[in-house]
């Protein structure tokens, strides 16, 4: 609750409230890990239960998934550059890299939506089998997170344009970046345990 600032720390840690927010967000990520772990467990259990519908090997297009993965991994790198620019108090660089990050994230989403449309057109809907239910919900939950992350970043850009880089806005950007990296980590698990394990 105090308004103390400590200027020997990186800018996002300077205000007391930001420090609390960042810790709180780490704990939230802990909860998110449990949430995704549960979804993975559900997927693992239901994966063989295809009920005469298609299995993963029948529908996955690995080439596209590799592109998706590259897009998201690159966006995680550029999100790191956002923080790099922020700590050097360079607003222009920050916004530039954030926009690139969002474009990459948007590209990822575009491909994911296409992937869903492709599945549905080939008769693999989430109502077809337990396997597909769990696939759609796992991917959909991740995709919804990415969508939120993009919307959130746009709001932050508007605030940065108005308020510049301050301990408060920097704290917000840092938290958003944590979230973005986290989504990337989840995707690596999806890539490995859903797609690779599905076609191998």
């Amino acid at each position: 609750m105090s308004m103390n600032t400590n200027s020997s720390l990186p800018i996002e840690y300077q205000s007391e409230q930001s420090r609390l927010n960042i810790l709180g967000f780490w704990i939230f990520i802990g909860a998110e890990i449990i949430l995704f772990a549960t979804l993975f467990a559900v997927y693992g259990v239901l994966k063989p239960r295809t009920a005469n519908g298609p299995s993963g090997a029948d529908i996955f297009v690995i080439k596209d998934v590799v592109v998706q993965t590259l897009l998201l991994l690159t966006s995680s790198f550029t999100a790191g550059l956002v923080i790099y620019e922020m700590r050097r108090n360079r607003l222009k660089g920050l916004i530039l890299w954030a926009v690139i990050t969002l474009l990459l994230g948007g590209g990822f989403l575009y491909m994911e939506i296409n992937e869903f449309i492709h599945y549905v057109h080939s008769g693999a809907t989430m109502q077809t089998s337990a396997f597909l239910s769990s696939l759609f919900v796992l991917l959909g939950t991740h995709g919804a997170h990415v969508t939120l992350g993009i919307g959130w970043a746009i709001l932050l850009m508007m605030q940065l344009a108005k308020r510049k880089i301050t301990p408060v806005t920097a704290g917000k950007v840092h938290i958003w970046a944590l979230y973005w990296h986290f989504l990337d980590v989840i995707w690596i698990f999806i890539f490995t345990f859903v797609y690779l394990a599905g076609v191998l």
Partner: protein
Amino acid sequence: MNIKWDKILLGGDPLLVGSQIAIVLTTVGIIAAITYFKKWKWLWNEWLTTVDHKKIGIMYILSAVLMFFRGGVDGLMMKAQTAVPENTFLDAQHYNEVFTTHGVIMILFMAMPMLMGIINLAMPLQIGARDVAFPQLNALSFWLFFSGAMLFNLSFVVGGSPDAGWTSYFPLAGKEFSPGIGNNYYMVALQIAGIGTLASGINFIVTILKMRTKGMTLMKMPMFTWTVLVTSLIIIIAFPIFTVALLLGMMDRLYGTHFFTVEAGGLDMLWANLFWLWGHPEVYIVVLPAFGIYSDIISTFAKKRLYGYTSMVWAVVLISVLSMLVWVHHFFTMGVGPAVNSVFSITTMLIAVPTGIKMFNWLFTMRKGRIEFTTPMLWSLAFIPTFLIGGVTGVMLAMAAADFQYHNTLFLVAHFHYTLIPGVVYAVFAALYYYWPKMFGYKLSEKIGKWHFWLFNIGFNVTFFPMFFLGLNGAVRRAYTYSAESGFSTLFLISAIGSIILAAGFAALVYNIYWSFRYAERNVGNDPWGNGRTLEWSIGSPAPHYNFATLPEVKTIDAFWYMKKEKKGLGLRKSDLKPIHMPSKSWIPVYMGAAFFVFGFMLVFEWHILSIFGGLAVLAGLVFRSFDYNSGYYVPVEEIIETEKWRGEIK
């Protein structure tokens, strides 16, 4: 699939029509009264938009008392129905709905918010903080709980109640076997309240880790605060599992997926596993803070330091770990095999070890103490033997082989009421009496409190003790009636009479609140019990909105006790006073509660297009919050001096 308008209002049944009319009249009455007394502005400024943890605590407690009434009426209705054989007061469908709403409301909308209220009220005071880490998020947690609770209660008169038990097992709870919308309420309302609980968990952890006053190391924290920390950790681990289970259940019911169905590869046991992976830790989420309350109260009124403080902390930690390793004991009979059953049988029994340690520590705390039999202490004393019965029968149920005998009988129902009522409800009552002066500046009447205590205790035992024997004789749970030849009649009748005594006990509490509000002595001072040990008793009653005029420094556990003994650190010097920074009130949390309510309602009725608008309303709240840069305000020194006048002159 769209639900039509004529499905919304339930008609026909005189009980329902009566309630509908009563609800409409009460609502109109309340609105008229607030308007007549010109209280809208006050209500909005002082309560609906508040971010003060103490006021939020009071709102939690108030709502939980109302929910206790609703859940209690459900309990009484079941007892009335089974009082005599072949009774026709409730039919099978009604009985199903009543035990479902009873179970859900008691656990999620009574026990949880009651404890959330007490935590909100007491924990920041115990650690010498001026608020929680995220005051606005705290208000959001409350409004999400409230919105979930209202949505769930609406099911009684609008659209139909859920009827698949508080465990909502699939495939029974799925669309094929429960086509109405009742079980949609379960999936949606619990989700909304659950988000709030998760937020509270994060909030409390950060508060306890980061906002303790100077000198209060972890091992100098009051026991209650310790239990809150561990409970919050369990919340972080267990609630996301329930979030997923409810999401998948909702997908099955609303969008035709096949997670838990019996066709297309769905797996009904998946629900049972997910549910209990959350459900068993959940009962520890409610019981651990209660253990903390007892620890503080027993040491206060035995006037001794808590015996075995360190072992108490470790016991709580151990219980929290074990609580996540026992979930299969809820379905020993569903065919996972003897090997798995044995493992879970043993983990379950192991919980008795740390719990036993705690029991002995409480007893040793009282040994050679000069015990004062105040109402909070009476509840704590009664807890020990009654909870022991719950624990011993729990170990009986944990023996997998024997469980085949009493599984799904009233023996189980008696067991968990013997753990939940002494383990949670008694603690909540104890804490209400204990902290009432800190909330409102006057005590509840001790005399009426004793009536409350004795009626409730006797009523509770008379109600539930016979149910052990009914269960052993083969009376199954969730059965709406039985034949006279079964020989159950006498015990059921005794049990029903007990529940009337129990209800009288609750009525005594309500009367006590009314009586004390009117007549109890005011100006009870900062330490109304005379034996306060922890920091909350060092500040005025009711606690000022900034809590501590200056932040105290702590050297030992039971810091306030030693301050009194050494006469150090109690006074207030003018030169130490500085303006205090406080968070501003906000309309966003209550708006979010309303938005979630609308969103949830649309989902329940499967109006998919409208529910998109509900979702947008929720998102709009998030956007408002993101642009909210209000950084609070300062309480001026003059106001602090004015508020602290009760200490005498401040130099």
